[in-house]
């Protein structure tokens, strides 16, 4: 009989080996799924994981990777700080939307003024929008002990209704001939988040994501606040004993993740999406949860995980156009990835032992 046994010290090997193992297991299970759908599994896997980087259209698709990875990384880093502290902000999608609405709103309000200050101010407004939206569950939690998971999630639905109202009402393009959606930022240079490098797919959002990753890494490993975040997540009573103020930590973690999600929304709406529209948001706020876990809640790991997840998006689109694979299959694939990761993760803190007749034979 196989039995689990707690390791005295977490395994360093499995800490790093878990994500690759999970990816391989997901490819196998995904392959079976694709085969069951009547596709050639090897072709699908190659289209998703190989072609975007090395295939025929790689020159274009490589750039798309950073476009998708940027917002995922930016949001996931914020979420990871909270998750580490045991603060579960799962409403990043709503904060992303509100950041986009606030930031875009500022830009559209001053249309068609041209000034190089406009875009930076929009970024700040976007961050503020996300921060403010995240402060609702944060303050309800600290003041009334309300569950932040449920509140932040409910606020996603609220944000979506506000977005619908924005794109058909208060932010609607007055020259849009009645179509829903705001003005397109591609025709408003001062407020546009254009590409800094077309081949890399780098826009200001990508820059922000990479800089944030480095800063977050330093925060977690070198700074007392990072220590307090980890401590609060692992041993809440020890954290209070250390001197952590739990309420302040909630406000800080929710605030950072909200602001980063809001910024991501602003970069997206002024760049790749181009305008506020009823469905400009594509679920990055939820996918970022997978990215955060896949990256082991470690900022540098999240960068890698963000690119991997971007690969499944870009490759998934390819598989969808070339092989007729439904979009939902990619969503299932991403869900499986998280499952496998969580399952394999047990090996970091536990090991399996084979028990025969009550005696342990020992195993890795």
């Amino acid at each position: 009989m196989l039995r689990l046994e707690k390791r005295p010290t977490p395994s360093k090997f499995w800490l790093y080996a878990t994500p690759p193992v999970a990816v391989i297991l997901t490819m196998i299970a995904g392959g079976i799924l694709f085969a069951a759908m009547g596709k050639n599994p090897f072709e699908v896997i190659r289209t998703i994981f190989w072609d975007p980087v090395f295939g025929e259209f790689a020159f274009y698709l490589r750039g798309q990777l950073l476009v998708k990875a940027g917002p995922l990384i930016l949001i996931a880093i914020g979420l990871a700080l909270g998750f580490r502290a045991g603060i579960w902000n799962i409403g990043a999608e709503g904060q992303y939307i509100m950041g986009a609405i606030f930031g875009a709103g500022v830009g559209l309000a001053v249309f068609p003024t041209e000034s190089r200050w406009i875009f930076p101010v929009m970024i700040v407004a976007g961050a503020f929008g996300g921060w403010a939206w995240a402060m609702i569950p944060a303050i309800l939690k600290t003041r009334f002990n309300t569950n932040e998971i449920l509140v932040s999630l409910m606020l996603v639905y609220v944000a979506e209704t506000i977005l619908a109202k924005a794109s058909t009402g208060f932010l609607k393009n007055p020259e849009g001939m009645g179509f829903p959606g705001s003005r397109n930022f591609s025709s408003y240079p001062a407020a546009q988040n254009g590409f800094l490098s077309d081949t890399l797919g780098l826009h200001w959002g990508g820059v922000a994501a990479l800089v944030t990753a480095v800063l977050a890494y330093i925060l977690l490993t070198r700074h007392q606040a990072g220590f307090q975040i980890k401590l609060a997540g692992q041993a809440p009573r020890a954290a209070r004993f250390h001197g952590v103020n739990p309420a302040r930590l909630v406000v800080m973690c929710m605030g950072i993740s909200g602001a980063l999600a809001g910024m991501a929304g602003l970069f997206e709406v002024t760049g790749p999406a181009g305008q506020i529209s009823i469905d400009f948001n594509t679920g990055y706020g939820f996918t970022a949860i997978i990215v955060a876990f896949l990256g082991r809640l470690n900022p540098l790991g999240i960068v890698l995980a963000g690119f991997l997840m971007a690969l499944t998006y870009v490759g998934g689109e390819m598989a969808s156009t070339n092989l007729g694979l439904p979009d939902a299959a990619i969503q299932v694939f991403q869900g499986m990835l998280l499952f496998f990761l969580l399952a394999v993760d047990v090996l970091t803190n536990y090991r399996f032992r084979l028990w025969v007749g009550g005696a342990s034979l020992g195993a890795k």
Partner: protein
Amino acid sequence: MTRPELLRVEGITKAYPGVVANSDVTFSIGEGEIHALLGENGAGKSTMVKMIYGLIRPDSGAMTLHEAAYQPGKPAEARRLGVAMVFQHFSLFEALNVAENVALGMENPPPMRELAARIRAVSEEYGLPLDPSRMVGDLSAGERQRVEIIRCLLQDPKLLIMDEPTSVLTPQEVEILFRTLRQLSSEGTAILYISHKLEEIKSLCDEATILRRGKVVATCTPRERTAREMAELMVGQALKTPERRTVAKGEVALGVSDLSVESPIAFGTALKGVSFTVAIGEVLGIAGVAGNGQDELLLALSGELKAAADKVRIAGQAVGDLGPTDRRKAGLVAAPEDRYGHAAAPDMSLVENAFLTAGVRKGLTKRGFVDWAGARKFAEEIIAAYDVRTPGPDVAARALSGGNLQKFLMGRELMQGASVIVINQPTWGVDAAAAAQIRQSILDRAGEGAAVVVISQDLDELLEVSDSFAVLNEGRLTKPRSTEGLTMDEIGLMMGGAHGMEVAHHAEA
């Protein structure tokens, strides 16, 4: 005395990775016999009884009950065969009532109303008053133990296992428990009594099996041996009592006046008007049965619970409204009882755990950035000074044995040069040699001029280290008095006596 044999344990061995908990253990218990299983913390007593109770299985060896092979696969089987157990850490559910708790420990409980009547009947018969409809979370530690005992008695056990039953009782409550146990014994129920308290065993037990490092080192009749003989068998070496330097009492270092706080713990005890002072060089011992406000007192002193500023003063400075960081700055360090999760973060390394409380006083942060090299150096100093057995400072705290981690945590607080030291249960679950070392360090720090508050449930320990003595009872602290000349009876009365239990036994007698 020849009694028919009830249980025989023959050559039992049980190993865990890295430790052999029991090695070739053999002993037997007769019907109606009170048999002591004696040994230090970590000697393998708990592992042994868990095997008898069917919670774990031995690797090798055999047991017989009434001369039939006995291999309980689970506790339910053990209970069916007449083996019952009262746990050291109660297996009780705080949010359920007494009757429900009892029902959960029975195979085929009768309907609730009938069960309640039987609980009342049994509790009166054995002098253990208990109201079946009360919520267990609201009961005192002694009352909770009664729930466990009654749960066992309702099943007419042939063998009752009691794991360290007196650690949660006042001296008077201990007497009453012993009366109950003797009554059971005279009715033919055998009792396997686990303890490391020698005087108790001498007064109660017919036979004793002494374990050291998982092996049986002796079997004896406790009444025929001296406590010292048994202690040496148990520990394997002669123990020296801590030396104390007498220091002239200095100025007041810690002053607490009329401190009242609500408990943040579910089913906790609020502190009610606690007042005391501790002078430089003085050790104040605070006794009390578990759950009478000890945890809350530690939280209120460490700064995790705040009060009005003037309720707590460190060297005259009002700190009642300050948090843990500021109180450490003011010179107070604290060591909570629970090692895993409160005093230490189990999954973090010793370096990180050293930083956990020493960051402030050891100057390990610069502009918010942590000096990890400095924290490592401090961790290594603690490991060296307190003889902490660990592969190095980078292992997770949970990898250390309880005793070793406790030494590390005591070292962490005692080596910060604080002027006020508050410790809850300094030697809980620690072997005798390490306990002696910790007590010595506490006395040394007091000798160097620190004011120390030791909260403990071990009366012997308190009498050994403290200059003055007080008792926490339902959140109230008695007026501290000098330890000199204090008798057990007086302490018992300070602890609130037997919580009205005498009545029951007198009525019956």
